[in-house]
């Protein structure tokens, strides 16, 4: 069966693709580049050119959202075939700063490919929802969302540290504007807090990136070059400590590492749903991606010195925020907090500094992006039907909107880490990584999934099950409560489908990812003393097994 | 003590200090303007003294003297503009006291 999947299907697909596209890497690189540029160009077009008819705006924006998703799907397919641990589809454009070693280099490796794919799916879903959301000043709304989308994709596809940062910021500013203009209650202060916090984080991480640039002495912002050469040279351990601290706290703020998380629930609660989807789902993963792709590989000693602290802060995310989430009664804030909480897992995975833990973290990021986007989408759908985010004022919605209830339950189950959804694979890999790192950490980490079950199911029960509350009865009496509309259904299906496909076929993500993380994280630095003993232990067993096993079989046959 | 360069410079320095003192002390904008003139004048004196005492045969240190010429020009221009502003302000506010000029503040 394995052979079947690996060889026959993919070979056939690759043959078709190669026949059709001449297997030109340039073409793929071109596609990758244009998948980032097209949304941005369309965004500027929509911002500058007016007046445009609404249907034209919608169609154009839809193209802008669809194209990257199609490209991502295609690249993903050809990436799976290639099975390499290097960056593929690379392209380079000089923008005038090449004297500093800066140029727009794009490419994907096993770590960025899943995230790029995830971002494109989340962006497509958010975009499709936005196109028909009926927002005021729709063309500007879509333009900003496209800008955010392009920036997010660019951040994950950049090989150049500078543009990695640059694209993130491109995506960040529309976030601010969109929260401010189209947001909900308390949008002004939430937007301001979010922006100030994230700018601080981004700047600190920029300092970290600059320190890598300067300390390396390679005069290059190119991740590949840096990785190759630092293998031989490396930084001094003391320098690494400070450099990694900059990256950790900078990126940590961007990922709402406890206790720098307060922007996230408030910001997401105030944000329009498409923005919350794209930010919480995709853009927020930028910081983790930075730590995984840049921080830990380039500064292994620095990373290993900070893992102790990362663990404690991640436990803050898990346990502290886990409890906070349980106490939260505002649906959107609850989802915001839960996304903060789940970042704790990713940090724990990173703290392992092993291919299992970090691979798990990437899978977790992939899955969490999809599931949290789905939750934000559905929470808005709930809001449109109940006119409130207060879960105590809902109830019994499942009767009128069974499909919505089904999707919501599925999304919660995905968040909770039910097998069959992509989230499970990441979580379990992180747990395994933790066992090798520090076994006792498993206890709080696994306790986290119990807590997420508590708040998740509680939310489901409050919103959809049981008797409707008095408030909801009033709302339902005033207007008919309908089930999911088509414009809500399609993005939800898209996200759920992605979650389920990867849930059932994790290899699609893990195979390229595994190659990449194995190349980057051969053995954890700190646990280097422990793991060999482990593996030798198990290797011992395995070798003695193979001899004994034959005898065993004989015995059992008798 | 022989009269030498440092004596002239001391006079110049004192003039500069007195000019600054006037800026600090007086609220009458005309006198403030005069104090500024004294400060510029202090520089003139120092310039001339340096020129004189540092001149050796072959280098006349003329640039110091030339500079004085320009400083006097500048001083005249500043005074002219300053007085014009003071007059215009007086027409609108009936005062030339600088501490009455606090319409622009936080």
């Amino acid at each position, binding site marked *: 069966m394995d052979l079947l999947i690996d060889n026959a299907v993919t070979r056939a697909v690759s043959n078709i693709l190669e026949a059709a596209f001449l297997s030109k890497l340039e073409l793929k690189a071109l596609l990758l580049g244009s998948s980032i540029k097209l949304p941005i160009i369309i965004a500027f077009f929509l911002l500058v050119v007016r007046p445009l008819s609404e249907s034209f705006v919608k169609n154009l924006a839809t193209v802008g959202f669809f194209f990257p998703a199609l490209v991502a799907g295609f690249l993903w397919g050809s990436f799976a075939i290639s099975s390499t641990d290097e960056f593929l589809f690379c392209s380079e454009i000089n923008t005038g700063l090449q004297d500093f070693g800066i140029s727009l280099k794009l490419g994907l490796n096993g770590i960025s490919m899943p995230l790029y794919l995830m971002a494109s799916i989340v962006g497509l879903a958010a975009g499709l929802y936005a196109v028909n959301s009926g927002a005021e000043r729709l063309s500007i709304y879509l333009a900003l969302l496209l800008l955010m989308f392009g920036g997010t994709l660019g951040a994950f596809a950049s090989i150049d540290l500078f543009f990695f940062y*640059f694209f993130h910021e491109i995506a960040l500013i529309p976030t601010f504007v969109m929260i401010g*203009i189209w947001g909900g209650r308390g949008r002004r202060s939430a937007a*301001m807090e979010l922006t100030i916090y994230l700018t601080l984080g981004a700047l600190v991480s*920029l*300092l970290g990136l600059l320190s890598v640039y*300067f300390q390396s002495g390679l005069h290059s912002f190119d991740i590949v070059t840096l990785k190759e050469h630092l293998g031989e040279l490396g930084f001094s351990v003391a320098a690494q400590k400070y450099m990694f601290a900059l990256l950790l706290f900078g990126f940590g703020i961007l990922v709402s590492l406890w206790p720098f998380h307060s922007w996230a629930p408030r910001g997401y609660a105030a944000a329009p749903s498409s923005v919350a989807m794209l930010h919480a789902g995709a853009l927020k993963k930028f910081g983790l991606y930075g730590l995984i792709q840049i921080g830990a590989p380039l500064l292994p000693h620095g990373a290993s010195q900070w893992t102790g602290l990362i663990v404690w802060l991640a436990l803050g995310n898990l346990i502290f925020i886990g409890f906070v989430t349980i106490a939260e009664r505002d649906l959107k804030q609850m989802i915001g907090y839960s996304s903060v909480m789940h970042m704790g897992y990713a940090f724990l995975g990173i703290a392992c500094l092993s291919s299992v833990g970090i691979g798990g973290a990437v899978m977790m990021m992939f899955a969490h992006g999809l599931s949290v986007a789905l939750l934000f989408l559905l929470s808005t759908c709930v809001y449109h039907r109940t006119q409130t985010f207060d879960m105590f004022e809902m109830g019994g919605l499942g009767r009128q909107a069974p499909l919505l209830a089904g999707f919501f339950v599925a999304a919660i189950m995905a968040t909770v880490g039910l097998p069959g959804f992509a989230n499970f694979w990441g979580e379990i890999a992180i747990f395994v990584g933790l066992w090798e790192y520090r076994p006792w950490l498993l206890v709080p980490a696994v306790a986290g999934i119990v807590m997420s079950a508590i708040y998740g199911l509680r939310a489901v029960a409050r919103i959809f099950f049981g008797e409707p509350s008095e408030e909801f009865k009033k709302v339902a009496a005033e207007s008919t409560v309908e089930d999911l509309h088509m414009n809500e259904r399609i993005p939800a299906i898209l996200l759920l489908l992605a979650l389920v496909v990867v849930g059932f076929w994790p290899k699609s993500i893990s195979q390229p990812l595994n190659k990449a993380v194995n190349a980057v994280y051969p053995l954890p630095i700190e646990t280097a003393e422990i793991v060999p003993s482990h593996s030798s232990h198990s290797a011992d067993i395995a070798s003695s097994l193979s001899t004994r096993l034959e005898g065993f079989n004989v015995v059992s046959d008798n | 003590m022989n009269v030498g360069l440092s004596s002239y410079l001391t006079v110049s320095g004192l003039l500069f200090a007195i000019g600054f003192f006037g800026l600090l002390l007086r609220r009458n904008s005309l006198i403030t303007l005069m104090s500024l003139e004294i400060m510029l004048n202090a520089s003139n004196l120092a310039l001339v003294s340096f020129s004189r005492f*540092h001149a050796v045969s072959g280098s006349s*240190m003329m640039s110091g003297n030339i500079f004085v010429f320009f400083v006097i020009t500048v001083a005249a221009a500043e005074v002219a503009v*300053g007085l014009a502003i003071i007059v215009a302000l007086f027409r609108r506010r009936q005062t030339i006291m600088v501490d009455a000029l606090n319409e622009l503040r936080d």
Partner: protein
Amino acid sequence: MPITENLEKYAGYAARNTWEIILPEVSLAVLALVLLVLEMVLPERRLALVAKIALWGQVAVLLVGIPFSSYAGEVILGQTSFSGLLRHTLVSEVMRIFFLLSSILVCHIGSIYLERQQLSRVEFFHVTLVVTAGLMLLTQSNHFIMLFVALETVTVGFYVLVSYCRKSSRSLEAGLKYLLLGACSSAILLFGIVLLYGAAGNPLLHGSSADPMNFAELGPFIAAHPDNLLVLVGAILVLAGLAFKIGAVPFQIWIPDVYQGAPTPVAAFLAVASKAGGFVVLLNLVTGPFQALQDVLVPLLSTVAVLTILFGNIAALTQRNVKRLMGLSGVAHAGYMLVGVVASFTVDWAVYAILFYLLTYMLASFAVFEVMTVMAPSEDADQEIDDYEDLAKERPFLGAVLCIALGSLAGIPPLAGFIGKLLIFVAAFQAELWVLLAVSVIGVVISIYYYFGWIMAASFRTVRYPPLDDAEEVPRVWPQESSMSRIVLGCLTLATVAIGFYQGLLRFLLV
């Protein structure tokens, strides 16, 4: 000394006065005179022509004069002219264009302002042109006499410009404040120059010079005597004088008052050109004669940079008056550029980072100031952030321009301001100025609050509560920008965005 010999010497001096090199400056001066003549000649109803001639005349200078002088200047790049009074470098060539551009923009904004305020035009343009010529000469000065005269031309011109709106007592008050404090700083600067002159001219000291005001001769002397008290005090007094121009702590204190009172185009001119002039002189000095004083200047400038960044940003944080806000935020920008100046002691290309920063700052600042001018009420000193509410809804174009310009000032990618800040940061990193970097980051974060507060006011929906009493609400009249404004603002915004994406546009600075 025989007179004939002297005459030959003087003839030599005269021969070195190559006026064609400063053709742009000369043209501007001539243009200024032509304007005066036109004012007298033209009938009153045609006086609007003056503004057009001033504007297009400068464009012509930009398009013809600059290339011509660059053509002449290419031969002598790095050389001096006018017997060592002027020195032509890449920096000075770029800054000439910079000042000319600023002047064009100021004239453009000024014509809007003057029309709105019904003020006479010709004097404004005349003074602006002369000031610009002075600034252009200032960047090329290689001699303290030239420097002082050019600087004072600029300063006196600004005294006039700041108090230009003489029907407004605020403009006059700002003018008098600027004059008194400016003259004080000039006196300090002058005294510093004198001390340097005195120290370097001392024939008893090794390396003394016959013409100590010339940078080329002052430099070696200072390098030989970096511990001389006169040199040190003279240098710091010169820096104090320049600190006034660039608005560095503690000589920044005048800025909000003067910006608030000054006519908006003049405030823009002050914020951009005057500040840039100060920076260019500062750069010429620290990379030239003062290079050897880095043991003293680096700590001094670092401290000043830290204080400037913090003061500017913190003071601007709760400021609601937009002109004062721009002034204080300009102080913060001066602080970032000072970081670049400190870096330039050890990092050669930091100078170009500062120029890059200045260019991006100019683009964004003028866009903001032009929007402010268009939006200004009759007393333009009273503009508050709250006046910008609903701007994006009522005037989407102005709103978008304002947001992009403020974003660029805040240093947000993908706008040009970010690249400017980035280059400064990179330079500071290379120079290992950790504290300055940390403070800069804090400053940028604080600045987000007020810039974005303004953006928020301009672009976010506002909830209007009905008035409490029955007072009739006067519907607000939204001014309409002219098509010329649209073009100019569009160009500024486009440039801001384009440089953000493609830094190659300013690549000549980064070679």
